[in-house]
């Protein structure tokens, strides 16, 4: 049978003794922890599932399409994935910190908007910020900002969050592929 990328993927997953197998499975499952932690964008169940799925697809695609790519190209792509992961993580944290409010313990974050509603705009000033107006409106963002601006920010944050984890999965997978290429060479050298 041909040694395809997906065969390698299967080998990695079924190799329970290997650290890289555990790391890969952990990386795919990691976003689901947000269902309880509620650190990411709302809705945590849907976004947790979506992010895990995006990671899984990224892993499958990398194994399928990049498993025969030369080492040099793979290292470059791995560096790009790592860079995008770091940028994405920073963007996600900045966006969530700037445009989300946590209503309290065990409650989903609320995503703000960037354009205030016309009936709320006259009330907002330095002593009464928009975040306080959100607390004063039962955390219903649509009573403070326009629906469109909330939707745009929400989509932006979800894309940044999901993309960050996908980049992490790509980085980890390329690292595993490279490691699996190095190990047989090392074994051959050891046997000689």
């Amino acid at each position: 049978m041909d040694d395809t990328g997906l065969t390698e993927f299967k080998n990695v997953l079924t190799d329970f003794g290997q650290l890289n197998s555990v790391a890969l499975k952990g990386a795919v499952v990691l976003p689901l922890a947000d269902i309880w932690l509620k650190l990411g964008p709302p809705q945590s169940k849907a976004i947790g599932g979506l992010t895990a799925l995006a990671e899984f697809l990224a892993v499958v695609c990398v194994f399928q399409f990049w498993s025969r790519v030369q080492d040099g190209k793979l290292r470059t792509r791995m560096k790009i994935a790592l860079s995008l992961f770091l940028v994405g993580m920073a963007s996600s944290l900045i966006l969530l910190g700037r445009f989300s409010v946590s209503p309290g313990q065990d409650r989903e974050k609320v995503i703000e908007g960037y354009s205030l509603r016309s009936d709320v705009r006259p009330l907002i000033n330095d002593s009464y910020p928009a975040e306080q107006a959100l607390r004063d409106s039962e955390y219903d963002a649509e009573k403070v900002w326009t629906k469109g601006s909330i939707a745009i920010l929400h989509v932006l944050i979800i894309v940044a969050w999901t993309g960050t984890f996908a980049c992490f999965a790509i980085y980890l997978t390329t690292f595993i592929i490279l490691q699996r290429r190095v190990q047989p060479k090392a074994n051959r050298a050891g046997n000689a």
Partner: protein
Amino acid sequence: MWEAVLDLIAPSARFSRWCPVARTALRWMIAGSVALQPSAQMIHSRRSLHFAPEVSGTQNETASPESKRQAIMKSLKDLAAEQIRFDDAFLGKQRFSVDQHNRTLSYDLRPMPLNFVLSETDPLAMPLEVLIRVEALRRDFAAAISDERFWLASLDRIQQIVERCVSTSGFNVQSDQQRCNGEIDEQFEALKQSIADYATAHGLRLIEPPQTRGPVAAYRVHITIDPPRARVRVMPLLEYKKYEHFKTPSDQYEWSDLLDSEADMIGWYRYRAEWPKELNGPEEGNIEIKKKGTLTFRPTQK
């Protein structure tokens, strides 16, 4: 005498915080049901929150369980029908509508919390809530799509399940109750599918029914009004600030009544507690709800 009956019923009616009229009407209807039907009476022991019509007097000893059950069902149906007639804002709110101009359809099949109908532990609270929902839907379907027939069969089936499941002590033993609840939920699910099919067939877009509160899950707060001789009303603080800023006359403020019961709240609110004059009269202030617990309103001491 009837004042005493009403006083006994008062704590059992923990329904709308938005609609004191509906609450008062249902209290009176329950009292009226007791007064007008010789076969039905309220049983309250130690001010417990139970509505339990039973065959009374000599009839009580001779009547068969079936006739008792029928009497209970008749009382429940009458109460549900009366509720729909008197209250179209809360328990009897609109649950189905079609906007032909915008080609949209909205519906709400969700149950009301049982403690808004009768006491949560009352075995008749569940059947009464279901019957009120069925009556509201029957009214709205008849007004909006009287030519259609799919809803008639669905609502009749739900009513039949309630009739079958109600015993002389409300819903039967727990296992039966779970089965009945499951069957009722199944029928509402089937009705939901029928509504979706109807919307598709007629090119109508389904829209969410209007919500009274935002999307964030609120905290369950137990409200205590001590002494219970005040009308306590609240509104989100942002609404209050908007009224003040736009100089809305105070008699046009839209407050929500808080009952001596439970409410789902989160964030900052403006409250107005209208105590009697001897207790310093009306009092206003701001409160923040950031966890579940008990919220007690007491008049400020002089």
